[in-house]
């Protein structure tokens, strides 16, 4: 029983990371119908930005860890959002303006991700970075179940972000515009909605959340390396697809589902089988129900 609860908590933590990144995928897809393959690497960039910001404040300015954390969270989110928006401005928007085939945009996204990864590796070298400790570790124990404060923070952040995004998308005017763009991209500018601003806002939201996920991930697993974003990005993408890409509830649910599946696999099989199972599940779901749990099937017009 204790082991079950312990694994449940681990699964919730992993699920939170997946959900936070999957939200970014799903937001962009919901608006642009573009799979932003660079998103996993934006997450990695977020973790590195958090590292540089935190070491700067701790080392050079000499602030206390608490104050550093309070400054790192908004700065990381802001700077990572900047990276996401730059990608949109430099790579995706010119293609959109030209009306290029969607395939070309997808290839560009994939290549942007590879470029982020490898330029990071080329600039910073292969040595891994150690993330400084910002939070005093507190372990709460009930019986045989123990949980760190960080784990609780991660889980609660994911839930809070979900509620915030759900609120933005369903209750605010800009959220309405976002939904409108995904519905009909050509009618929306005629309604006087600045389409580019809404798209930039979408990228800000998605990349900001990826930055937050990067910071939390770096705090939980304090070793940073350039390729950390690739696999976790793919998995988060699986989560988004499983939930039905384009739907925020789907991304959230899919993230937690994938977390449970992975922790379950690791509990039962050798841990090297984790990726095999994750990708096989993706394949099965795309094969049987390509639209995911919450997705709506689109009819093809002739």
């Amino acid at each position, binding site marked *: 029983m204790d082991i079950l609860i312990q694994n449940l908590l681990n699964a919730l933590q992993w699920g939170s990371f997946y959900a936070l990144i999957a939200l970014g995928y799903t937001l962009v897809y919901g608006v642009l119908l573009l799979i932003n393959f660079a998103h996993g690497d934006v997450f990695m960039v977020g973790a590195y930005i958090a590292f540089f910001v935190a070491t700067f404040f701790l080392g050079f300015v000499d602030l206390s860890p608490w104050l550093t954390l309070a400054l790192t969270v908004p700065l990381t989110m802001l700077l990572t959002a900047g990276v996401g928006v730059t990608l949109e401005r430099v790579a995706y928007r010119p293609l959109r303006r030209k009306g290029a085939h969607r395939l070309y945009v997808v290839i560009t996204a*994939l290549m942007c991700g590879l470029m982020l990864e490898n330029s990071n590796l080329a600039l910073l070298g292969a040595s891994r970075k150690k993330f400084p400790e910002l939070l005093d570790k507190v372990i709460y124990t009930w019986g045989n179940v123990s949980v760190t404060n960080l784990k609780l923070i991660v889980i609660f952040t994911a839930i809070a972000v979900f509620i915030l995004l759900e609120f933005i998308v369903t209750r605010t005017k800009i959220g309405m515009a976002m939904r409108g763009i995904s519905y009909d991209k050509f009618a929306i500018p005629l309604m006087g909605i600045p389409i580019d601003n809404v798209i930039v806002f979408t990228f800000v939201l998605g990349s900001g959340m990826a930055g937050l996920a990067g910071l939390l991930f770096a705090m939980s697993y304090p070793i940073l390396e350039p390729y950390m974003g690739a696999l976790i990005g793919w998995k988060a993408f699986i989560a988004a697809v499983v939930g039905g890409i384009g739907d925020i509830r789907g991304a959230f649910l899919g993230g937690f589902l994938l977390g449970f599946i992975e922790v379950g696999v690791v509990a039962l099989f050798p841990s090297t089988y984790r990726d095999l199972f994750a990708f096989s599940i993706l394949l099965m779901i795309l094969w049987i129900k390509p639209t995911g749990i919450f997705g709506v099937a689109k009819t093809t017009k002739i």
Partner: protein
Amino acid sequence: MQKYSFNFGIWGMALIVIALSQFGALDLYIQSVIMFIGINVILSSSLNVVNGYMGEFSCGHAGFMCVGAYVSSILSVIFFSQNAIFGAPILPPELAIIGFPIVVIISGLVAGLTGLIVAIPSFKTRGDYLAIITIAANYMVISAIENVDVIGGSRGFMGMRKVVNAMTDVIDLPWMMIWVILGTYMSIWMIRRFVSSTYGKGIMAVSQDEVAAEIMSVNTNKMKMAAFMLSSGLAGVAGALFAHVLGYVNPQSFNIMKSTECLVMVYLGGMGSMGGAVLSAILFTVMLELLRFIIPAIDTGLHIINVLPDSYHLSQVWKWVLIPLTLILLMQFRPEGLMGNKELPKLFPGLKKFYKFK
């Protein structure tokens, strides 16, 4: 004359290359570059069947290459060489010359069957989602092989060098060069024959409009299956040759980076152009090899004029920044690639006088 000039040219060139490497006029490095050009030509032209002619987006080509590489390596080591894992060879190593092409063909068939894990979902799924399925297939293949400890898992697998040496012991010829040239020629011939046949034209019909193709009595599911299996099967052949040229395989050398290389080659040449795929494979391989020398040269140059700090050196990783950048720029400024979907004689009508290629 014009009917035969192409074949004469190709075989003449092949004979010259083989003769030069036989008598040691080409050093081993240039020989290996030529062999990699051949392998890359197979890869890019086979990916061109799916990404170019059929208009789908498959980005897990390296996964099938991995299947071919492993199947062929294991078979040839079991049959033709003494190995710590599999024990004594089943057949005498002298038979390797006859056995090797059979092994390559078998590995191509197995890779083609593996292509089914992408082909069958492709009946229902198209576009972006199919792209994801192919990437997932790539990861699945790698991660499955990494989990089989008998063949080395993530440490890789070797022992193919002995098989190649066994071939040279019987008749002293640059065997791998011969096999690569033969494989390249046969693959291109097969693709060309398939795509220009009445049956194969269905692939292009699928790319134009699936519904219309279905109405025109093209069996789209069968067409997709044929295209995916042909493409992945030839990727398997390329993998088999690759494994024996290197003499060592590792699952991680067939990861998404390798798939990206294949993609760059296809989109650089132009989707749906055989000549483009071949040309871009040659260009790309030569460019990659040149970067090996250019990057250190730039590095020393920048250090001399004191632009870079002393502690920082430009490494070969920059190659991996430049390759995606090439593709990004290509997508922005010339998305149809070097040759579009045209063949060489169409771009340069003067060439028609000199050769004919079927």
